């Protein structure tokens, strides 16, 4: 078997860069930090590509099955004799695939930021945070056990917090970063409790034994039931809540749109391509456990995913801020992936949904990163996030325009671009499993095509707006990543995923199902067609449509008031309803009781202090009368 221990370098290089630039970045010119980060990521990406090529194409499956290799593993913390957190590296199809995704997108974001962030205060800080994120994300994908994953899960959370709050003097950025951290933290609570339950039942944290079809997880699945579900089901549902928090699934999605306060390359890297798919990755990691022991949990995954994808697509229809449109689109696409996992079975062709989900994760990372970086290039040119400030930009930004168009076509699912292939597999899997979910997925495909082209036409077509200066194309350092990602978006669909990433590690043959493919392309074309009619040339149609369905339009624009509900829960219930009463109770009841004890002592003593009057004769009188009293008592006691 090939020795993969060199893969340790892949996360360690970004960590080293982070420590170097974080501790001493301010001593040098900022550009050095940027270059160091980019160089480091180039190396990491290079190593990842080598690993992927070796794993998939040189070594290939052993006995018809891809091996799960623990390249490195060392005990980090011991809880009991059997439960210990290991730090290690697990090489298997999905981790290798994620390595490629993470390092590629991260490298693109690094290169792009050299141009995009040029001249910003805190340029060095930005790069050190990017390196921290890359390290954490790589540690997450390579984790050998669920607790290691949780550790890096928290670390990506904090890097996301730091990067969203990069412009820390802006109150909105601070609020957004706080919100992102707390919402995901809340979800992580579910994850943690899930881990506790799962590890207690199975007595292991290790992914290989948790997911092995003969392992303890599967064996102990017939545990005690609580409210009709087995302990394993509950554990896996709770773990899924953690995943849903990171992956912005309804109703824990509220942080994602706000996270767009961060610099755009961060949105592309963290909030589109890598960190937000960690939830999908988590479910995929534990997929055999889900599929074999807890089909109930898998239903939850499917329905949450399906609903989120529809919900987000509806909201994306009306948003004005281009990054928010993309954020909701991300949420919608991740919902797709979740749904695909949820409808999947285990093994062979049954596992089509699993394969499709991973496939979509891969292609989505490429085209969504492209969309975000393109949006960054546009924002860089016009200094605004709102599509109402844009129009007719295709003349000024030719490269951005072409790459953005490619990305829009890809996400809409037009063959032969990559989005078509992966989305087609998802719909095919959904059709096999559950017609309702298929219908949702099918509708979302149309909506996606519509809102993406609404975005596209509003930005690149229509009238010129009043720009402060003539918009100009971004420098080469920003457009090269765009072009690279555009190529990836076009061609990644031809990767033979069903031969590489499967639920039971065995390759199988997947075929394009024309009965699904043709309608899905048609509805995508329909969506594009409607968008063309409405937004290609300025007209009053959108406004009239909006006013004819005023309630729905407002609901979508206000994101179905979910934010307001959260505001109510946190401000009114938790702050005003719990915390303030507790603080009051502490001051006025508990502390007052303590003070009352003190007060009683003081009052009693001031009442009885009169005994010490300073009058000697009074003392003597008391003394003598007491003596007499005592004498009488003793006489009485001892006389008989």
């Amino acid at each position, binding site marked *: 078997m090939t020795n993969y221990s060199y893969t340790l370098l892949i996360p360690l290089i970004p960590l080293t860069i982070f420590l170097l630039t974080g501790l001493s970045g301010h001593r040098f010119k900022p550009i050095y930090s940027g270059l160091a980060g980019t160089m480091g990521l180039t190396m990491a990406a290079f190593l990842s590509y080598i690993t992927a090529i070796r794993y998939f194409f040189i070594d290939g499956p052993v006995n018809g099955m891809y091996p799960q290799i623990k390249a490195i593993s060392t005990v980090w913390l011991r809880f009991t004799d059997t439960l210990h957190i290991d730090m290690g590296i697990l090489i298997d199809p999905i981790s290798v695939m994620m390595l490629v995704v993470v390092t590629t997108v991260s490298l693109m974001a690094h290169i792009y930021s050299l141009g995009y962030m040029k001249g910003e205060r805190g340029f060095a800080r930005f790069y050190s945070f990017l390196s921290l994120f890359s390290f954490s994300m790589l540690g997450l994908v390579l984790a050998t056990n669920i607790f290691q994953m949780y550790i890096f899960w928290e670390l990506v959370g904090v890097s996301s917090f730091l990067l969203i709050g990069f412009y820390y003097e802006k109150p909105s950025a601070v609020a957004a970063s706080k919100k992102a951290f707390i919402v995901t933290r809340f979800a992580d609570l579910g994850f943690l409790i899930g881990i506790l339950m799962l590890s207690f039942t199975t007595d292991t944290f290790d992914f290989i034994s948790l997911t092995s079809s003969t392992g303890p997880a599967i064996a102990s699945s017939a545990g005690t039931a609580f409210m009709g579900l087995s302990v394993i089901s509950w554990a896996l549902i709770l773990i899924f809540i953690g995943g849903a928090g990171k992956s912005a699934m309804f109703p824990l999605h509220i942080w994602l749109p706000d996270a767009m306060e961060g610099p755009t390359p961060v949105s592309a890297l963290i909030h589109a391509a890598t960190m937000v798919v960690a939830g999908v990755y988590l479910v995929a990691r534990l997929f055999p456990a889900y599929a074999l022991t807890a089909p109930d949990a898998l239903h939850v995954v499917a329905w949450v995913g399906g609903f989120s994808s529809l919900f987000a697509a509806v909201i994306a229809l009306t948003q004005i801020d281009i990054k928010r449109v993309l954020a909701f689109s991300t949420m919608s696409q991740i919902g797709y992936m979740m749904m695909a996992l949820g409808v999947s079975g285990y093994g062979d062709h049954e596992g089509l949904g699993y394969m499709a989900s991973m496939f979509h994760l891969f292609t989505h990372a490429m085209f969504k990163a492209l969309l975000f970086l393109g949006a960054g290039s546009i924002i860089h040119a016009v200094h605004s996030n709102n599509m109402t400030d844009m129009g007719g930009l295709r003349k000024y930004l030719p490269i951005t325009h072409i790459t953005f168009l490619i990305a829009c076509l890809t996400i809409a699912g037009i063959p032969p671009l990559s989005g078509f292939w992966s989305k087609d597999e998802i719909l095919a899997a959904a059709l096999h499993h559950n017609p309702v979910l298929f219908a949702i997925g099918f509708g979302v495909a149309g909506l996606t095509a519509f809102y993406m082209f609404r975005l596209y036409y509003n930005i690149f077509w229509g009238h010129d707006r009043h720009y402060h200066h003539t918009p100009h194309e971004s420098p080469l350092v920003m457009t090269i990543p765009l072009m690279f990602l555009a190529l990836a978006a076009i061609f990644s669909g031809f990767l033979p995923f069903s031969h590489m990433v499967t639920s039971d590690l065995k390759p199988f043959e997947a075929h394009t199902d024309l009965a699904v493919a043709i309608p899905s392309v048609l509805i995508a074309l329909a969506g594009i067609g409607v968008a063309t009619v409405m937004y290609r040339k300025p007209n009053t149609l959108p406004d009239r449509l909006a006013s004819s369905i005023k309630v729905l339009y407002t609901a979508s624009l206000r994101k179905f008031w979910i934010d307001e509900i959260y505001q109510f829960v946190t401000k009114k219930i938790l702050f005003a309803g719990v915390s303030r009463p507790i603080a009051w109770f502490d001051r006025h009841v508990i502390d007052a009781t303590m003070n009352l004890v003190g007060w009683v002592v003081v009052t009693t003593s001031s009442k009885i*202090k009169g005994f010490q009057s300073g009058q000697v004769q009074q003392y003597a009188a008391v003394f003598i009368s007491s003596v007499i009293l005592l004498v009488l008592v003793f006489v009485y006691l001892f006389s008989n």
Partner: protein
Amino acid sequence: MMTQGIPLYYFLIISTLMFFIGVFGFLTRRNLITMLMSIELVLNSVNINFVAFNSYLVPHRMQGQFFSLIVIAVAAAEAAVAIAIIINIYRNFRSIETDKVNEMKY
């Protein structure tokens, strides 16, 4: 002996009277000198008891008489100290009334 014919309880009555007169004086008089005098009364009532019991119980021994001598000596020393204190109190407070000298309180 001189005391022949006089019953013991005569002495005891006298000494008890003196004792309580002394106690009464000590408790009621405000003047420190008078209080000192009352203490002397108390001490002397004890002396009478000592002497009386001595001659009735163990006439061939002298412990009671010696003891009363010691009491007298101590009383003298005590009077000297007390008067010194009283003089100092008078210097400080311009009074030897006890209810004026009540600094030692809460």
